[in-house]
């Protein structure tokens, strides 16, 4: 299965992947509208870490044996037939057990949803033509989307 891989040496820490991720998961998919006018401002599913001159992005590994799915008490997190770990917000009760269990720290609290506790996680831009938006947004090709291993 194709997954995201990160090249630390090539990352300039610009954070465009985070921005592209938030926009892609918005309703309008428009940078200004999604930020200012939508009901819920999207939380990026990808994280850029920075310290001194080191920076890199990271996100969900779509594990073969996902701890988050095992921990999910509601069935909101599941593995689809292709192996992606996906999330159904309608079923989520916001217990944060997935965040507790994920050894990658890849699941985020949905920061801006006030009426209900929810999470966000990478869905590899499930239905997007052309693959994940973060890859396209990276000016330095520090994020790649490819098949490695089975």
């Amino acid at each position: 299965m194709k997954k995201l891989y990160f090249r630390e040496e090539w990352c300039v820490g610009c954070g465009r992947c985070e921005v592209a991720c938030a926009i892609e998961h918005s309703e309008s998919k428009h940078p200004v509208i999604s930020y200012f006018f939508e009901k819920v401002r999207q939380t990026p599913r990808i994280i850029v870490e920075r310290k001194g001159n080191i920076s890199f992005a990271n996100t969900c590994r779509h594990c073969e044996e996902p701890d988050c799915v095992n921990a999910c008490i509601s069935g909101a997190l599941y593995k689809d037939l292709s192996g992606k770990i996906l999330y159904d917000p309608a079923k989520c009760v916001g217990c944060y057990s997935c965040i507790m269990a994920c050894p990658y720290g890849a699941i985020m609290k949905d920061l801006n949803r006030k009426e209900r506790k929810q999470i966000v996680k990478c869905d590899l831009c499930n239905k997007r033509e052309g693959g994940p938006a973060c890859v396209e947004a990276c000016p330095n090709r520090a994020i790649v989307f490819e098949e490695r291993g089975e």
Partner: protein
Amino acid sequence: MSYVIIGNGPAAIAACEGIRKYDKDREIIIISKEDQYAYGRPLITYQIAGIVKKEDMYLRRPEFYKENNIKVLLGKEAISIDSKSKTVKISDGSSIGYHKLLIASGGTPFVPPTYKEYLTKENVMTFIKWADMEKLESIIDTIENVLIIGGGLIGIKAAEALVMRGKNVYIAELSKRVLPTVIDDYGSYYFHKELEKNNVGLFLEDTVDSFKIKKNRVEKAVLKSGNTINIDAVIIAIGVKPEISFIDKEIKTNVGIIVDDMMKTSVSDIYAAGDVTECYDIVYGSKRLGPIWVSASEQGRIAGYNMAGANITYRGRLLMNSISFMKTNLTSYGIINPELEYTNVEVFEYKRDDLDIYRRINVVNNRVVGAVFINSIYRKGIITRFMIEGLPFDKYKELLLSPNIGFINFEKEYRVKEINSITGYKKARIV
């Protein structure tokens, strides 16, 4: 002959998925005492609170069973197991032969003998299953004051649901703090504060001495401390114990069923998984009970793999809980009060009183053995690596105490490998 599974919780569902990874054909039969397809047991309090609808409580789509060639006997109870003839006897009088058997019967509420007779009253209940939820639902509009006996995980979640429904809630807890098994003294302060803020009447180091009955309903509780409270409903949430009343006496048990790291019991072709077992615990380094959802799923999956002929071992359970009461969240891992187990315990703390954030890390011989996080959710699961892999605490002290935990403070080689992992984190080993 079929795979037979007793119970229909997360351990059973994961076992079905585990079996189907290696065996697509042989029929699976699930014997389920409850007349519901597998649902999120912890969601019963969220349903009362109005956060989730009944139809969204099921763990899998309705087609799941059919697609996977699973026959579910709803509302049927396994009465006994005969390991000689490899059969399970069922409440309707029939018997089913098994190729491999999984016991995934979970827990049953512990009710002290003195309270037992009151369970028949229409306003007294335990709170661990669908039927309990419906019993509470049936009287919810007629009640105002509710007493919860036990301030553990179930008691606190029930209290939250009732507070959200506008009820007046009391909790009687024997210990000096709520959530005694999953929180330390200091951390419990945040919960006591939040309970108070939501007008929950907390009676610590206290319990019910006697009830007063009127017309088949409990209407008053007299506490050990002498307090008397008027109540319209009682929830008994003292704890659960493994449900092993029906099992073959050949199967080795302590309090729960003893399993090896392939989830086998002491009797051949019989496996066990979930709340019913005593399995290996990574941090304690020994076999013990650990009734948590994540481990029930993990154990079920491993059992399923092995029942279908694979040879896969479990890395062991890491105890962990994530629980919120209204705005306060607790996450705890491993051994919370290690003073009871070890002498050379070091405790490290980070506090931000202005944000109500508290992080406590318990260290023994430079190894993280437990942690308590209050209102510190961000990327918290990264700490599980320390307990599973035994990474040295001193090297990563700042990282672990900081609420802004990430990968950047790990050695380059480690982080590059991990954030680019092809398979993801592994909890099983092929032998």
